[in-house]
């Protein structure tokens, strides 16, 4: 059941009705059943993995709460990490590392005959694994108390709006909300509904329209030239942003209808002034997860410059690998990691250089935005291309082989309309542009107008065939 489908909207509508009509103490049951049903619509069997992850982390957290022994606590944490990451490794990374090992052994003429697994990648495994891991680590660190209610904990792991593609929620934020009794609030419904419509707009009017063009180019790289690669890369930059942030908006909006606030996952990332700023705005739930559970435990920036650069590189490399078992994602992560380390290393020099140049601030900000956006676009080539070789071919093409571009006029025209609308909204949000008070209509009318505008934009310009969200594959 895709977020961008009518069955999901109907599912949400019916669930909201039942949720607010049912007795408060049983609401978690309804949400848990709905969450499992939502997941099982994709693959009923793989619910077993979620149940296993739930059972393990629930038990480990309870045991952690009962013991003070440092050794036992470490053992319990290790058991949770091993099981969760073990499942993730088997289902997501086994074949990748097995192939890499086979290639290495072949190069060294060492026999290697470990078979690959023929299993389907469970949807959302990377997301719920990280979510449960953060819970266990937080209990281990003493930041939160273990949840004693198995049902609520199971709901924390499987809460359907964010189960398959995040935001990766922290227990300290989500679990208390699952214990609360939520009342019907018109404002929540309106803002949640608006957010859902905004997410759908970004998904079906922009991302799905652009995907037609991007798929046509990246699906047949040798047939196109440099200018086409460049256009397709810009298109992909907006496609992936609108696809993923659209998903997040629908998730946050859906949860809001049920009285639950999920964390913001995107904050106008293409308005970032440098790469560090980009990662404060892009997939915030993952970047903060990596910061809190990987970068800081590795030493963060407390162990000297060299170690800081190494920690950044390792964190981003693993962040890249989190996205998928492919060398493309490794290169993507490595590029981001290296660039972050380089920016860190050259920070003071760049500041001095900027002062010497005395460029007016608006021009400097514009140049920084453009430079950051283009570096991110460069890395998207490795993210989108089927192989590293193809990505290099695209980069080489952009650098040298310009001719008449291949254009898909209709989908690009629809997407361009959507991008203009989105950028207007994001600029106004990012730079706090507000209508003068006397021009502002009453809030309810504003919301209604926005809702109607989004509804009809989706109806008229949205792509019809419901395409899957890109991040489902991670």
């Amino acid at each position, binding site marked *: 059941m895709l977020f961008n*489908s*009518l*069955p999901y909207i109907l599912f949400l509508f019916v669930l909201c009705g039942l949720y607010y009509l049912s007795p408060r103490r049983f609401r978690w049951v309804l949400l848990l059943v709905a969450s499992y049903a939502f997941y099982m619509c994709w693959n009923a069997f793989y619910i077993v993995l979620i149940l296993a992850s739930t059972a393990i982390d629930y038990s480990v957290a309870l045991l952690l709460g009962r013991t003070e022994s440092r050794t036992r606590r470490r053992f319990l944490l290790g058991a949770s990490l091993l099981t969760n990451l073990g499942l993730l490794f088997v289902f997501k990374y086994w074949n990748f590392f097995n192939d890499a090992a086979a290639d290495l052994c072949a190069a060294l003429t060492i026999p290697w005959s470990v078979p690959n697994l023929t299993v389907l990648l469970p949807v959302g495994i990377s997301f719920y694994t990280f979510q449960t891991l953060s819970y266990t680590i937080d209990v281990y660190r003493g930041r939160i108390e273990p949840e004693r209610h198995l049902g609520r904990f199971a709901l924390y792991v499987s809460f359907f709006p964010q189960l398959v593609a995040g935001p990766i929620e922290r227990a300290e934020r989500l679990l208390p909300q699952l214990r609360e009794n939520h009342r019907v609030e*018109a404002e929540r419904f309106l803002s949640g509904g608006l957010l859902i419509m905004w997410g759908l707009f970004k998904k079906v009017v922009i991302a799905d329209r652009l995907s037609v063009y991007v798929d046509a180019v990246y699906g047949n790289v040798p047939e196109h030239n440099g200018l086409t690669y460049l256009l397709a890369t810009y298109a992909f930059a907006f496609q992936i942003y609108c696809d993923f942030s659209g998903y997040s908006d629908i998730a946050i909006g859906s949860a809001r209808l049920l009285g639950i606030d999920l964390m913001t996952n995107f904050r106008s990332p293409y308005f970032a002034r440098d790469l560090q700023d980009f990662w404060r705005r892009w997939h915030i739930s993952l970047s903060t997860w990596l910061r809190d559970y990987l970068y800081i435990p590795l030493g963060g920036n407390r162990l000297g410059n060299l170690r800081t650069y190494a920690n950044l590189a390792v964190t981003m490399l693993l962040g890249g690998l989190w996205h998928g078992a492919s060398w493309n994602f490794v290169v993507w992560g490595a590029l981001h990691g290296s660039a972050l380390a380089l920016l860190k290393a050259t920070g003071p020099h760049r500041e001095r250089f900027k002062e010497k140049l005395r460029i007016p601030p608006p021009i400097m900000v514009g140049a920084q935005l453009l430079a950051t956006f283009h570096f991110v676009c460069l890395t998207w080539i490795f993210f989108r291309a089927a192989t590293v070789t193809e990505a290099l071919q695209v980069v080489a093409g952009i650098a040298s082989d310009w001719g008449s571009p291949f254009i898909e006029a209709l989908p690009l*025209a629809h997407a361009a309309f959507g991008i203009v609308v989105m950028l207007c909204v994001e600029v106004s949000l990012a730079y706090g542009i507000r209508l003068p008070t006397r021009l502002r209509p009453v809030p309810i009318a504003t919301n*209604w107008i926005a*809702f109607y505008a989004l509804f009809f934009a989706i*109806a008229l*310009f949205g792509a019809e065939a419901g395409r899957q969200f890109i991040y489902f594959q991670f």
Partner: protein
Amino acid sequence: MVRNFVLLIAFTGGLVLLDRAIGTALRAAYDRTVTGEAGGQINDALRHAGRDIIVFGSSLARHQVDPKVLEDHLGLAAFNAGCNGQDIYYARMLESLLLQRQCKSRHFVYVLNWRDLVQDDLERSRMFSVFADESPTIRQILAPSLSQQIKLQSHAYRFNTLAVSTVRQLLVPEHEGTDGFVGIPIEYEPVSTDFADMDHDLRGGLTSSERQVMLQKLKLYRDFSDSAQRQHISLTFVVSPTYRDGRTRGLGERQILNELSKVADETQANFLVLDETTVPAFRDVLCFGDPRHLNARGAALLSRLLAECLASGPDDVAKKQRDDE
């Protein structure tokens, strides 16, 4: 509580009113377009519902059957309603609209594209949503599921993807001739890559999924034929030529054509093979614009043969073809 309920009613009412207003405005604009593959061509075909002969099909019809040649040979008014990239979904829905509008045609001609029988892409024909209220056949085809039926309740949604092209066709109409025929003027210079995909075209026969699609589509062909017969309109299916450069038909293509000829037999439609196997002239590369489409010269020949067939009955033409060979 009461206030919330009133607000909900007002909100829904506003949505419905706006939906109807947008739908009505777009329909008024849409009805004025007579060009463009995104819908204007349907209006153009409907305006020519009084023609004696109407030709259906994809680009194989649009570029290969010249109504003027038919008119010259038969003295009957003809119109080419073929549309690039379309298949039996388009033809069936257009036929239903034509028949509802007191179509006075005596002959329907359907130029077959055997590849369409193994490809299921209803999205390409989604522009018929505009006419959802006018034909049960259209609703049946476009909205087989409950969710599609709900979506089609929105009059604005019926113009999904059509709004931009409707405005464009109103402002800058494409020139498409007056009888629907668009000849391909260029001479064909074959290159080896033209045949690369042809060599893979169902050479090994049909897979089970392709067979499933074919069975669904054959039903539409049968319905198309039955509907025409019920209105006493004779129907002729035409197999047009392919430039094969010495290659033979693949097994899959033969199986599909065989099934289509059975449908024609069952529904008393004519099944006319006017391709390179029956007309030696179509083995000449000079007749082609590309391997799958005749150029204007080839189209004139095909149209003439088709006219002779319609004048004398398909058996006579087939006999004549054999005599020519």
